[in-house]
């Protein structure tokens, strides 16, 4: 395998890992507050459509990302209204929100662009080379000649780590996810915290979706989220609910998805569909091997009725 081929592989790994990293970092915060949002897929696809429509309307990729983020927030707010506001089952609500998000975006896209899906020509999110770092050997261009959303993911991982483990607010959020009764007794609003954490997760998932449409594909396609919301949830488990490890796990999954470039470089000719299976199989293996019985937040997926009585 040549140097250039290795660079291509690494570059693809980071490019494919970025949307997962964004969505998974948001979900890390959500899950740390005790909420599992399986509706992430809905936020991502809404972010993709919102990003595409926004970029088209404002003729700006940046404003497209902002629209995508808002669309992600809107879907997450529906989830939060049911799962946190009404206190109904998180997993079923999340599944419904994913199905609904995929259906709604598909219907909106078809209504606007027809069933065939007229080619969208979108202002795309171009990659920005970071002067200096870009020239580093091997990792320079894979890591530092990427879309700005990738840099957002790099920056968020340490910031979120610091937020969760070093700030007063982060401490409250973790307490809500571990033991909502205790957090409530300490004066923390359980519902507000969970709502905020869920909406934040939706925001990042929306940006991840916008990245897919504007930086990755350059267009919108029905179902283009392709299960990334579900994979992001696996990535959170893989990263043991720690933002730094979650970023690493997302890049690992990105590398697994970029495996085709690696195999092609090695001259191996595996069927394309088998290559598509690789990331999922590797993730399952990693979950079984490495996660073991590592602890999820104790109150994850459990609804809290503390202030209903």
């Amino acid at each position: 395998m040549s140097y250039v081929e290795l660079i291509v592989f690494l570059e693809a790994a980071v490019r494919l890992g970025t949307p997962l990293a964004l969505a998974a970092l948001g979900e890390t915060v959500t899950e740390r507050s005790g909420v599992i949002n399986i509706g992430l897929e809905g936020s991502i696809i809404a972010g993709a459509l919102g990003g595409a429509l926004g970029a088209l309307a404002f003729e700006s990729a940046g404003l497209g990302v902002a629209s995508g983020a808002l669309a992600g927030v809107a879907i997450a707010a529906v989830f939060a209204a049911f799962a946190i506001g009404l206190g109904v089952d998180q997993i079923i609500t999340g599944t419904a929100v994913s199905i609904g998000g995929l259906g709604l975006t598909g219907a909106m896209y078809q209504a606007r662009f027809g069933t065939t899906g007229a080619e969208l020509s979108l202002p795309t999110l171009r990659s920005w080379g970071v002067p200096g770092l870009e020239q580093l050997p091997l990792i320079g261009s894979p890591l530092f000649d990427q879309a700005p959303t990738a840099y957002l993911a790099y920056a968020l991982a340490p910031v979120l780590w610091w937020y969760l483990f070093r700030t007063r607010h982060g401490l409250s959020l973790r307490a809500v996810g571990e033991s909502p009764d205790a957090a409530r007794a300490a004066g923390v609003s359980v519902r507000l915290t969970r709502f905020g954490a869920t909406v934040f997760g939706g925001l990042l998932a929306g940006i991840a979706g916008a990245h897919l449409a504007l930086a990755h594909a350059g267009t919108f396609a029905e179902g283009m989220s392709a299960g990334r919301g579900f994979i992001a949830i696996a990535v959170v488990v893989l990263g043991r609910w720690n933002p730094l490890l979650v970023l690493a796990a997302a890049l690992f999954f990105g590398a697994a998805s970029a495996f085709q470039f690696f195999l092609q470089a090695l001259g191996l000719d595996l069927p394309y569909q088998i290559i598509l299976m690789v990331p999922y199989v590797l993730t399952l293996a990693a979950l079984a091997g490495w996660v073991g019985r590592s602890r999820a937040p104790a109150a994850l997926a459990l609804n809290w009725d503390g202030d209903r009585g």
Partner: protein
Amino acid sequence: MTDPRVRLHGIHKRYGRVVALDDARLDVRAGEVHGVLGANGAGKSTLLSILGGMIRADAGGIEIDGRPVDLRSPKDAWANGVALVHQHFALVPALTAIENLALGRGTAASVRPAAVAVMERTGLTVPLDAMVSELSVGDRQRIEILKALLREPSVLVLDEPTAVLTPQEVERLFDLVRELASAGTSVVLVAHKLDEVLAISDRVTVLRNGRTVRTDDAASVASDDLVEAMVGSNEAIPISAPSPPDRTGNEPVLSVQGASLTVDGVTRLHEVSLDAWPGEVVGIAGVEGNGQRELAHLLVGLAHPSAGTVRAPTDVGFVPQDRIHEGLIGDFDVAENIALVLHRTDAFRLGSRVRWRDVGAEANRIIDAYGIVASSAKSPVAALSGGNQQRVVIGRETAVARELFVAENPTRGLDVSAAAFVRAQLIDMAESGVAVVVLSTDLDEIIELSTRIMVLSRGRLASVAPSERSREGIGALMLGGESA
């Protein structure tokens, strides 16, 4: 007379159909220790939670230093100088001690100096960087108290602080309470042990069925009067433990030899040995978290020893500690809950089918025999009162257990009459020839019921000699003393 520092008056609170408080009153003076007494379910915890801002009253008023206040949350209570130390649920096990102290106030780093200062001032020391899940019950309670003291309260509210402590630890806690009071802090303290409350309090208030029945100076009131005020005319029937059975020629129905149990790498039981003969009640005392649960599960076959042997009958009657989560299924009806036990026996099975008709008949028999107040065998068990739920458990377990019966804190959370019924049932069972093993954190219950007493401390089981059969003697063993 001085104005009280805290005055609660005309407090009402109901949960659905259950009236928890009905015209409850409480006034607390500056610098006094005020005991709140009452049977289980009298409304003590609810009243204090209202004072701590955890629960809002449906009606009534709260005054602090003569001003009416509205305590909508714990924050409001703290702002008014009231800090509540909870009986349950107030620590996060997955966080460290210092993180728990910092929760809602700041960060671990910012709160540490203040925490260290309070620890030095009060002598309450805890390992600040240890995970709470790894700390003892006593340490956890010290963290709770530190948490409250960090708020520099003028009123400190302690809800059942002694329930999980050994008699010696209780003494140390009471020393601290006296110190705080002499420094001007008002301390409100709930306990259901009369003697403890009288020993520490300046004044006592008695609640019964959600209503304040009297407030007295602790020094001048007769304890008999207080007991009557607590339980009303419905006096508990005194019972006595079964006498030691004749063991000659009899085999023990339960024989545990040198059994150890290791869970997730932690040894919970160390070489425990225990026999039980038909007709006796073996009482096992101990502070929570010293291996009671593990021992009970070993006896009934829910756990298997990592070393040593357990020989027990196949169907052991079992009253688990947590009725709601371990003993019953709230959404299931009475008959289905009884079927949890009956479906295992051939008498109620036809091949792979459950004979639901026979289960229903048996359920009706149990409802009658145990005086269970339920509209029918088809009503969901969640709709029954705690006492009736416990009757369902005991009734169905007795239906299969002919030789051995194990009960873990069987009267916890029951009102006085329900608790008396449960105790009488256990003694009846022993007298009919069943071996009964009771594990309880309630020393008085153990002393009242048991033919023979043992103490479980840090996973080791020790016998209590008849000469040590007193609160003090057993308390010494509970602290981990040598067996006599």
